[in-house]
């Protein structure tokens, strides 16, 4: 279907954005990369009164690193995540995740800020930022506020964003020597939304002990699903086939997947367990992997 009739305004600063939001009223939506929003318009699933284009706001762009955090501007495109050397070094999970998102032409327009603000339950990036323990930087007319990624996502297509507020950046704690990051997913076809996916961030000490662990699933619930019990089952343990099996068993309490066109909850639960093992096994000591 053709898009509904709607207004359009482009702003080139945050101040301009606040003014435009005031003028446009509550039915207007913010247009970043547009790769999900514009697709929903062609089903007439949403009929915003207008779109406010923020893609030329310079302060939302760029990737920089401080001592403790990698700051990724909201307008950073998936294609940038995939090839930026700072991301590859400090948040390898995001560099791994980007090529899994749809296809090259989508990655050339879609932005991290847009993906996080949409909070699609099957999307990779929300799960990644939760797994990374990132902070989402939000801004509104009244200033900036920072929200832990795990608090930012509130459910199906729902976030902590208030009306008149946007995502301006993501701050990711930089990876350390102990960091292990990986993303795995099951898709019918390359680039499809995952039937089930897992973003895993662990901290493994020199002796093989798991100091910290965040297993975050996507495509199996209403959003980025933190597997609390499974993660807890690993923390303080040596990473081993046995502890992985224990984590897998603990998953039963973590997930309550819905049915979709691929199948029922049992399918998704099963796939989540498979992914857990597939994500963690590469981090086993080499001797264990061989076994």
């Amino acid at each position, binding site marked *: *279907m053709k898009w*509904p009739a709607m207004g359009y305004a482009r702003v080139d600063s945050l101040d301009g954005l606040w003014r435009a939001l005031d003028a446009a009223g509550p039915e207007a939506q913010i247009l970043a990369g547009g790769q999900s929003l514009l697709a929903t318009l062609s089903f*007439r699933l949403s009929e915003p009164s207008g779109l406010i284009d923020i893609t030329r706001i310079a302060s939302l762009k760029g990737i920089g690193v401080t001592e403790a955090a990698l700051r990724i501007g909201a307008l950073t495109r998936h294609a940038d995540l995939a090839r930026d050397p700072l991301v590859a070094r400090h948040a390898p999970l995001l560099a791994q995740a980007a090529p899994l998102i749809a296809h090259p032409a989508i990655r050339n327009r879609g932005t991290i800020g847009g993906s996080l603000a949409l909070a699609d339950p099957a999307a990779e990036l929300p799960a990644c930022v939760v797994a990374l323990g990132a902070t989402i930087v939000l801004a509104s007319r009244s200033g900036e506020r920072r929200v832990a990624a795990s608090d930012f996502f509130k459910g199906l297509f729902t976030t902590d964003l208030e009306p008149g507020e946007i995502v301006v950046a993501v701050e990711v704690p930089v990876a350390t020597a102990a960091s292990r990051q990986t993303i795995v997913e*099951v898709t*019918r076809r*390359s680039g499809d939304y995952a039937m089930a996916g897992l973003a895993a961030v662990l901290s493994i000490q020199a002796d093989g002990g798991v100091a910290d662990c965040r297993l975050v699933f996507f495509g199996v619930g209403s959003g980025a699903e933190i597997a609390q019990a499974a993660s807890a089952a690993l923390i303080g343990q040596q990473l081993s086939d046995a502890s992985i099996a224990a984590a897998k068993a603990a998953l039963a309490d973590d997930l309550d997947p819905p049915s979709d*066109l*691929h*199948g029922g909850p049992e399918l998704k639960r099963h*796939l989540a367990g498979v992914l857990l093992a597939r994500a963690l096994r590469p981090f086993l000591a080499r001797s264990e992997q061989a076994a």
Partner: protein
Amino acid sequence: MNEIVTPRSLGLSREDLPNSYIGRAVPRPNARKLVEGRATYTDDVSLPRLVHAAFLRSPHAHARIVSIDTSAALDVPGVVRVFTGAELAKVCDPWVAVLAHLKGMKSAPQYPLPLERATWQGEAVVAVVADTRAAAEDGVAALAVLFDPLPAQVDMETALRPDAVIIHPELGDNLVFTRTAETGDVAAAFASAHKIVEATFHTGRHTGVTLEPRSIIADYNRADGTLTVHHSTQAPHMMQNVFATQLRMPEGDVRVICKDVGGSYGIKVHVYPDEMAVACMSRIMGRPVKFIADRFEAFGSDIHARDHRITGRLAVDAEGRFLAFDIDDLTGIGPYSVYPRTSAVEGNQVVNLCGGPYAFGAYRCTTTVVLQNKSPTCQYRAVGHPIATAVTEGLVDLAAEALGLDPVAIRRKNLIRDDAYPCTSPAGMRFEGLSHHASLDKLLDMVPLERIRADQAEQRRKGVYRGLGFASFIELTNPSPFMYGIGGAKISAQDGCTVRMDPDGSVVALSGVTEQGQGTEAILAQIVAHGVGVPVAKVKVVTGDTQTTPYGGGTWACRGAGIGGEAALQSAIALKEQILQVAGAMLQAQPSSLDIIMGEVVDRATGQSRMPLSELGRIVYYRGDTLPKDLARELVQTRHYITKEYPFAFTNGIQASWLEVDIETGIVKLLEHWCVEDCGRVINPMLVDEQVRGGIVQGIGGALYEHCIYNKDGQLLTTTLADYLVPMAAEMPDMHVGHVETPTQESLLGAKGAGEAGTAGAPAAIMNAINDALGPLSAKVFAQPFTPERILKALGTIA
């Protein structure tokens, strides 16, 4: 049969002349426009005063239309007019899709827009015409249509039960067609069998997904009473007749123009009510109306196909010889049989083709075709073939397993011998000449069987499950009037070609078959260049215009090369003879002593050049005064061709699939695929190979990905390309194609069809490969598509 003149007897052998193009991989002359964005698809055409149509479609699987309030829609800026079923019915007669030779078949009258009830979700109910498509959609959104939802008959398994919802009460029940046939003593064969294997197969309802959606511009010109239709179709002449008949116009006043078509695969050979509505609206308004289906409405209104449940049994003796097949097929076709081919042909074809490659004695089959409140189904690429092949080859592998035979050995033992032709199958199919054993030999030359079996064994030790599957198949091509004509459908089985030489020695060929990208125009150019004796670059081919091309059937059921190609060859040869008559008069030589090679008249014996065709053309067209007064000088010839001896030219082949099943996720990874097929004379091996590969991928789609999924209320859930999974590049394997050539003796060209072979065999090969992979785990799958969920259920991993 036609008098058997061989290509060689006419000096048309394949390699001895530079313009002997038959069998050569000539690039398509019309491909360059495609790679430069200069093709002309229907939506690329714009006309003065053009308006755009959009449809309100039923949100219910079954509902009474209580009222239609158009007032708000008419107030929408840009909206020109709103049409309901009743208004269109004033200018258009309804159609009923039955074929007389399918005894007892029944269906209900169908109108461009329904008068009282909507019978599937997605059925067009009201039309809005506006100055842009966007405005027309705004108008649709402003319509107020009150529906009274009715109980829907969704499940085909319950369609004939006493408590079923009768979709068309005037028909009495939901039975469209049923037929049981038996050859030989099936009961005795099963009673005497050493082993009986049985399985129930399901094929998933799927659809064609032409990348170019259905597209039409109807332009009724009141001033001269003509209707010109720019149409993305496979059968321009058929549609000319349909538009004329239903809109009560003389056929000669209707012209159908079909330039480039962005894929068809059978989807674009049917009469669609929304397209008929467009013609009606143009007829009423006297101005051009365009309708381009969007993807969303395509999923709910393009024909679907292959919604079948088949129970099959095979009886074998102790040596592994097949004794009898017993097949019971049930299919749900939606609420109407689709005009004019009907929706009973697919089921009929399934039971005609089961067991097809094999020699056996007794055959029993039943096909049952029922109505349901889902999108109508009809013929889609390789109609019935992938279903019949999956059933047959699935049973063959079960028999092999039961007997402890190798899958190749059991096929070798039972495939019809290559020297057994002509023969008739127990299902009544007449085979002129097939090459199952030669094809199997060739396949085994290509498939590294030993390496694969060794790898399979080694991988299994590592917990990796790989499988190899085979599927022999037959394919029905070059249809005669026995397919549709005898049933009363005005679908031409013959086709014509006009070939003319212009003054500069170039050649124009006008053909009734059409180009959908398979390369029809390229092979016609090759054939005509070959037949006349000119470089292929000197030939221009015109197709897709009922006013300029000879009357023909168009392109479907793999008839373009075999029927259209033969008409082109015959007319090219006739033109060559005519040119040589004129050349003989000019050169004071016997025409039989002359020949034409690469656009030059030459001395046949020596090959010495006597005169370029451009000189001959100059004299004929500009200095005809210098030629003998009584010399026939029409450098234009037309020939029509129809098969006469066999109802169909059957082809055959065999495929093999090598794949890996991830037993933890149920994901199937395709590793490699092979196909050997015998389409008779290969005109352009590059085009044939790509037809086969494209066909295989459509078969893979059905086997692994594609599925029109409905909920229990008859709501289609797969309405976007993100939900309905079409094969993409990353998952597709490299495919190897080989050929055996058994030309049909019915034509000089000897060509049969090639476009459906890939689709016919691929799902069966994949199913057998999956079941081979899962063999050690005692799991089997028979329901397509073979999704991760189904595979994990078969493994018992999930319930």
